[in-house]
């Protein structure tokens, strides 16, 4: 029997019981070879692409790094929320350190996850509003 016709019968729950045990075994082996083949090919292609990606990024790395830093700085100026994220992590680091010191344990073991800036629940402009009031005290 032709392989395709066999697989077609095999894939039909009504017809599969008409196949002999030998036919079923042949079809099953087909499925296994095809299945393992496709799985290996797919993952090998991914392997190749990861290696390629790694090499391409490495060659451009220094250049990109500089660009990134510049663009991050730009966006910090444009969008305070980005630096918010950065600063929040710094803040957490500081607080983690403080509590860890109290407890005399390593900072690797605790994270003060939820000490947040006021900006987080309220929109950014709320913080800015408060900054305004604070700054106006300084300037006037």
């Amino acid at each position: 029997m032709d392989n395709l016709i066999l697989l077609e019968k095999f894939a039909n729950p009504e017809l599969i019981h008409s196949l002999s045990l030998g036919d079923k075994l042949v079809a099953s082996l087909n499925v296994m070879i095809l299945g393992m083949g496709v799985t290996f090919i797919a993952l090998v292609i991914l392997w190749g692409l990861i290696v390629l990606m790694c090499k391409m990024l490495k060659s451009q790395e220094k250049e990109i790094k500089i660009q990134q830093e510049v663009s991050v700085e730009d966006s910090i100026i444009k969008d305070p929320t980005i630096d918010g994220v950065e600063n929040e992590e710094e803040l957490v680091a500081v607080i983690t350190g403080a509590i860890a010191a109290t407890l005399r344990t390593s900072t690797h073991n605790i994270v003060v996850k939820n000490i947040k800036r006021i900006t987080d629940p309220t929109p950014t402009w709320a913080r800015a509003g408060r900054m305004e009031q604070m700054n106006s005290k300084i300037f006037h």
Partner: protein
Amino acid sequence: MMIHTITKFLYDTGFRGLFEQPGNIIMIIVSFVLLYLAIKKGFEPLLLIPIAFGMLLANLPFADLMKPHGGHGDPGGLLWYFFQGDEFGIFPPIIFMGVGAMTDFGPLIANPKALLLGAAAQFGIFTTFIGAILLGFTGQEAGSIGIIGGADGPTAIFLASKLAPNLLGAIAVAAYSYMALVPIIQPPIMKFLTTKEERMIKMDQLRTVSKTEKIIFPIMVTLVVSLMLPPAATLIGMLMLGNLFRESGFTKRLSETAQNSLINIVTIFLGLSVGATASAKNFLTEETLKIVFLGVVAFAVGTAAGVILAKIMNKLSGGKINPLIGSAGVSAVPMAARVSQVVGQKENPSNFLLMHAMGPNVAGVIGSAVAAGMMLSLFG
């Protein structure tokens, strides 16, 4: 006169139902055993408690929690509504999105050879497939049973809902039970197939992976796998979307929701409704026993295939790869990787294989999604 009313009331209680359909009693006992395993033994409780409770509720006589929706004015049972999320294939991909948001593919990107091990471990799936065919299952059923060996609950549920809904309950229970048993099933196989010297091999520190690589990776995997195997696109796509939420740096709130409230809500609904498919008629059959048997074969063969390929790779690389990391390719993240760590550390207490085993481990998730796509392509 009142006596008639009371008689009628007693006639309507579930106790009569239990007498008429004693299968339900057995199913309720099965659900108790699963609850015991989940709560006392810690067998994947996040899934097995909802599954077992769904099984309990669905087997209470006359409670009709799986009654189909009968149109306006004739609502269905609660669990039937939840089940629509399984039947339409909505819930498992959402869980995959959450898994993606929880997964760090860094160890795999740092050591992409691990993908081979993630592929090899899927050998268990296809061996089991042949076994299931020989035991008389249809191709659709055999494919769904095989996926148990992929050690990914959502993948198994996704495939079974599409190809073999009648076996859904048994397959889900088998998949999660064996995932919980990974620390018991794998070590003897791993020890049998490796020498003491191999188990003592220390592997080189992994390189650090840049943020850019971690961002490109999920997009690349989605594109490549979905083009090769379109039926795998839903699972792989959602897995990788969750991962992109994690890595993009801008979508922390989406990532956190995907891996907390959203995955929890869907887990409750999915678990309950998958368990509810395990009616006495569907579950108390010879098929279930066969599935339980085939499931353990699937895990064992997958483990062995991973270890053997790792042994070969070790030979070819001149002794730089500890074959114990091969078993992690079956996925069951992160348990299988921890098993590699524990077995390795027993031989050499200063040996830390965990990060090295995480590569094959997450590769195994991709591998079994590919295998599931293959089954859908052939039998969908």
